[in-house]
């Protein structure tokens, strides 16, 4: 059967069954719309988790010394300079960045004007020294290096800390909102070898110092400040604590696919991988995926109902048109032709429903985003869009509509093809 003839006959019967076709299409649109909406929401929220809340770079591997140092018995397990060199030489490793904690406690005490508000506070700070190259892109002020005893230490703050501060702490305490740009240049006192926590009380004299914010970074320590590695080494040396072994090494793989090989090699050296962040990202990602899957399943169920509805409607229509089908057979329609006509009708209904449902989901997501922007209070990591619609989801929605309709048309089309013309035409 030629396509133009098929199109004409399909148009003919759809025009007559306009109402039924509309409701069939509507059912498909509901199912497809719900599915596209929920999948888009799941992907969108998943992306926020991956990119904003737990931004993990797929190429980075964080190496730490083992918590229980069995390795040291075997001559490994510490991160000294030769070990770092061996790590750097591993196949698939592009670069290795050393990190060292300042191994004495530190506190900051602030008493002064803080962006227009008077602020008095004191708190424990952790300081982590990192190689400048690891955070180079995020430094906005000066060179990220130790200027020596008595000079302010350049410090990076965590972008996530900033987000948490802005969305929860600042509003609660009526403190101003801060951006990384505003903070750059801000100086504050840090007193090393001093603690408010009795158990952590340090021995020996404390040493006052000054830190200066030079930027914000994803790679910065969440609860603390990130300073140049040489500053951390200098401070540790000054307090007579370990200044030789590193607290961690961040390896950059030449390619994400190299990561498993690198991880295996690192473990073989008696070292461990700090994948807490990655795990949290994976866990919350899994939770979102699970919720999305449940909702998607529900939507698929709606699609199934739509298919059943189409089966019903088409069965009735085929029964009502038995005589017409007989006439078509008498003038030369084969059973395959009759089948094609019914399937094509369903295909049009399904494609229309799939396209309408997908469009509705896209529009609804725009509406939800706008409502969220206007009416939801600000919370940390609140995204501009809660949705993500990659093209396979959009195309898949339309295709699903088609598939559901064709599935529903399967039996009616067979029944139509089995019409006995001799019986319907007699008399």
């Amino acid at each position, binding site marked *: *059967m*030629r396509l133009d*003839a*098929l199109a*004409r*006959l399909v148009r*003919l019967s759809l*025009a*007559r069954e306009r109402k039924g076709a509309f409701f069939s299409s509507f059912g498909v649109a509901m199912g497809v719309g719900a599915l596209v909406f929920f999948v888009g929401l799941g992907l969108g929220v998943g992306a926020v988790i991956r990119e904003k809340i737990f931004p993990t770079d797929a190429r980075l591997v964080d190496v730490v010394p083992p918590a229980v140092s069995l390795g040291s018995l075997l001559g490994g397990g510490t991160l000294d300079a030769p070990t770092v060199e061996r790590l750097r030489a591993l196949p698939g490793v592009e670069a290795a960045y050393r990190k060292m904690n300042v191994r004495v406690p530190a506190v900051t005490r602030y008493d002064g004007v803080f962006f227009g508000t008077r602020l008095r506070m004191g708190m424990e700070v952790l300081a982590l020294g990192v190689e400048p190259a690891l955070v180079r892109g995020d430094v906005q002020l000066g060179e990220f290096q130790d200027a020596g005893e008595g000079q302010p230490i350049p410090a990076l703050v965590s972008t996530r800390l900033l987000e948490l501060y802005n969305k929860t702490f600042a509003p609660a305490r009526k403190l101003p909102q801060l951006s990384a740009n505003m903070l750059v240049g801000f100086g504050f006192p840090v007193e090393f070898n001093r603690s408010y926590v009795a158990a952590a009380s340090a021995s020996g004299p404390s040493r006052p110092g000054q830190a200066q914010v030079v930027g914000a970074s994803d790679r910065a320590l969440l609860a603390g400040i990130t300073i140049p590695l040489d500053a951390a080494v200098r401070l540790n040396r000054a307090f007579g604590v370990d200044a030789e072994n590193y607290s961690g090494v961040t390896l950059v793989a030449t390619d994400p696919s190299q990561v498993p090989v690198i991880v295996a090699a690192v473990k073989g050296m008696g070292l461990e991988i700090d994948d807490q962040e990655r795990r949290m990202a994976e866990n919350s990602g899994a939770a979102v995926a699970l919720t999305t899957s449940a909702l998607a399943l529900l939507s698929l169920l709606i699609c199934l109902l739509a298919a059943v509805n189409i089966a019903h409607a088409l069965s009735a229509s085929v029964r009502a048109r038995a*005589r*017409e089908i*007989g*006439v*078509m*057979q*008498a*003038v*030369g*329609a*084969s*059973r*395959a*032709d009759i089948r094609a006509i019914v399937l094509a009708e369903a295909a049009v209904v399904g494609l229309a429903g799939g396209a309408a449902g997908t469009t509705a989901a896209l529009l609804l997501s725009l509406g939800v985003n706008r409502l969220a922007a206007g009416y939801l209070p600000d919370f940390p990591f609140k995204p501009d869009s809660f949705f993500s619609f990659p093209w396979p989801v959009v195309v898949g929605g339309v295709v699903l509509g088609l598939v559901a309709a064709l599935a529903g048309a399967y039996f009616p089309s067979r029944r139509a093809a089995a019409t*006995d*013309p*001799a019986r319907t*035409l*007699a*008399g």
Partner: protein
Amino acid sequence: MIQARDVVKTYVDGDGTQVRVLDGVSLDVAEGEFVAVVGSSGSGKSTLLHLLGGLDVDYRGDLRVGGVTLRGLGDKALARFRNTHVGFVFQSFHLIPNLSAVENVLLPSHFGAAPPDARARAEALLERVGLGTKKDRAPVRLSGGERQRVAIARALFGKPRLLLCDEPTGNLDAATGTGVIALFQELHREGLTVLCVTHEERMSAVAGRVLRLKDGQLVEERAGLQVATGGST
């Protein structure tokens, strides 16, 4: 044109008993004949017509129509046979209600190779049956006789050499029926072979030969004047 040999058709009744409607029917119709088939209601006339036209393939015996052996034809080949070799005309017209007259005539073109001049051809056929001015009318706006003329035009669309008619005047009043009978006569005169199931005296009167279907058998009621082949048994 038609050679039927020992055709047997049985229906299974609702209660499972077998009803033998055609019990060894043999029939020869030569090219260009006008044959009327008569018989009481339920004698199997429509059944025979459907078998000859390839609408029913469940039978025993041999059927050869227009040079085509029907047994063994697949769904597609059989559809093609109906599209090009035979034209059906039914008692209740069987037009498609939401298609105009000319679109009804064009219906066969959807299932076969459509000639490039399909529409012109359909319009010419309507002209031929006297409906040139009503070609765009919906069937409901045509009289019974006009509807049957549209149906005849549709049956002629595929240029068949055999017309199979099942009581074509059965739903028409006498005057209208006369017009339709005249049309069949005309078509026959132009060389078309016509096999017509009818109750109508006037129709059998114009036929060259009249056969009666009785107790599952075909018997010659009035032999033709110019029967070329052996005729029925």
